[in-house]
């Protein structure tokens, strides 16, 4: 256990509506999420002295955090716009916690939103697609974002004999979970057969192996453990965090089936003084089905090479050995881009408070959240715990 363990807590969390949103822009969605998260915490904008956000692809600003502070008319001591792709929303929590521990500020509002479904111009959508590859040494070969993850899936299948059905089972489980969340974008159940017969995108991945394209946002409020005691909701403590960075572009990856989630997870476990066996529920980044398999192995949540069997045996379902993404994840709840993993965080908070209703994991005390950006490139892990674990 290390300095800082349990010194900062999440005291407010909220999601906006997700799916297709046509009456609000990204800044307004950030404001809506912020207002809800502050109300959840029993706080208001005057209590916020730190602000963290990431840029919205559909409404970019040169300095997104400063632009959002201006929009909200708040004047923080600590104001950061962060970019690490999909890992950003988890990574920001580590940054915000450090700022609180260092005394730079006491209460940080983290709010982000994007509208990838209805807010992108044709040109923005085209640029986003082609931005995934290295502009000089990858993009000229025409790899789409799903194709990059398909290369990971193919390598995993070759290295460990992982079946096509195992990939599909990830999507099926996420949909099953989303069916229990009233706000999820896709709630109709699907079968392994449905995934296998859906439209091919980049072999072995089909449309149902790919995350949704969504509008939406979410916010959380972070403060010192001391202050957290007097607030409305049961506090959720940050027990440990870590990051890992191995490459940005897939052709520079040293290993296609083992990512820097290993290093990221190792740091988070060590700081929390906990291990994979202590995790009751996990929020794992699931932009494409193979990512969940790689992360389960890299984070030590199942033995290396056995993630396929683990998932096919129902290991990640509610009621299974380690329920993953009870809200339905990026595959079935929503994926508005950079803010996508915020929903994994808000779901873990809901689970640790025991407020998840029909999808509640019984006696959830310790949760792990892991997000990645790029193509298994940048990684960020958090371990969160209820009062009992502090």
């Amino acid at each position, binding site marked *: 256990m290390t300095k800082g363990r349990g010194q900062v807590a999440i005291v407010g969390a909220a999601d906006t509506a997700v799916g297709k949103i046509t009456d609000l822009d990204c800044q307004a969605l950030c404001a809506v999420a912020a207002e809800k998260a502050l109300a959840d915490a029993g706080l208001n904008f005057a209590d916020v002295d730190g602000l963290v956000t990431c840029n919205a692809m559909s409404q970019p600003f040169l300095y997104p955090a400063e632009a959002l502070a201006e929009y909200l008319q708040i004047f923080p001591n600590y104001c950061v716009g962060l970019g690490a792709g999909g890992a950003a929303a988890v990574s920001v929590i580590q940054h915000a916690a450090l700022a609180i521990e260092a005394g730079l500020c006491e209460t940080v509002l983290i709010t982000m939103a994007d509208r990838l479904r209805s807010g992108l111009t044709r040109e923005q959508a085209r640029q986003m697609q082609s931005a995934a590859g290295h502009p*000089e040494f990858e993009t000229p070969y025409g790899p789409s974002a799903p194709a990059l993850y398909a290369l990971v899936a193919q390598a995993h299948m070759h290295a460990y004999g992982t079946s096509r059905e195992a990939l599909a089972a990830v999507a099926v489980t996420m949909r099953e979970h989303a069916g229990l969340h009233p706000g999820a974008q896709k709630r109709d159940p699907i079968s392994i057969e449905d995934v296998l017969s859906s*439209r091919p995108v980049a072999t072995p991945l089909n449309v149902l192996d790919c995350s949704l394209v969504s509008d939406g946002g979410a916010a959380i409020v972070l403060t010192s453990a001391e202050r957290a005691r007097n607030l409305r909701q049961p506090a959720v403590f940050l027990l440990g965090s870590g990051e890992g960075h191995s490459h940005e572009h897939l052709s520079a990856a040293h290993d296609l089936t083992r990512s820097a989630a290993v290093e990221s997870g190792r740091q988070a476990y060590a700081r929390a003084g906990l291990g994979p066996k202590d995790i009751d529920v996990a929020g794992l980044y699931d932009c494409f089905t193979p990512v969940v398999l790689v992360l389960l192995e890299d984070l030590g949540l199942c033995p290396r090479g056995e993630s396929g069997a683990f998932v096919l045996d129902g290991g990640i379902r509610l009621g299974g050995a380690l329920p993953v993404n009870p809200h339905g994840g990026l595959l079935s709840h929503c994926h508005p881009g950079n803010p996508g993993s915020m929903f994994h965080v808000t779901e873990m908070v809901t689970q640790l408070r025991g407020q998840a209703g029909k999808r509640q994991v019984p006696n959830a005390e310790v949760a792990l959240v892991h997000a990645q950006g790029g193509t298994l490139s940048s990684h960020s892990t958090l371990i969160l715990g209820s009062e009992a674990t502090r």
Partner: protein
Amino acid sequence: MSANDYILPRVTPLSAAYWEGCRIGELRLQHCLDCGHVQLPPRFHCTRCRGSRLEWRASSGRGRVESFTWIHIPLAEAWAHEVPYAVALIRLEEGPMMMSNLRECSESQLSVGLEVTVTFEARNETIHLPQFRPAGEEEVTP
């Protein structure tokens, strides 16, 4: 850029020698004269010993497929007529891994471990894109 144009690489001062090699049918890699490390993409220094004595040498052009995918929904309009097209990660004999397309290769032929050899495709006067095809293609009887 018109919708029918392939996305072309943006050549930098450091990569000009690479693309010049491609234009004359040579796949060039940076070799470190101090530690022998071979690297791609080109850089200012050697990523192993941080030395700056780097030399361009022609690769054998041979490698093995580490992973591949057949793309059915193209990255951009320019690739639409090629679907499904193969994108692969290729481990070159000299060490570096690179992304490329597989040409003259059927879906049943392409697998992890397939031995491949470089070939060049002119995209315009200066950009000849390195592509790969199965090695020993010539020996295959119909």
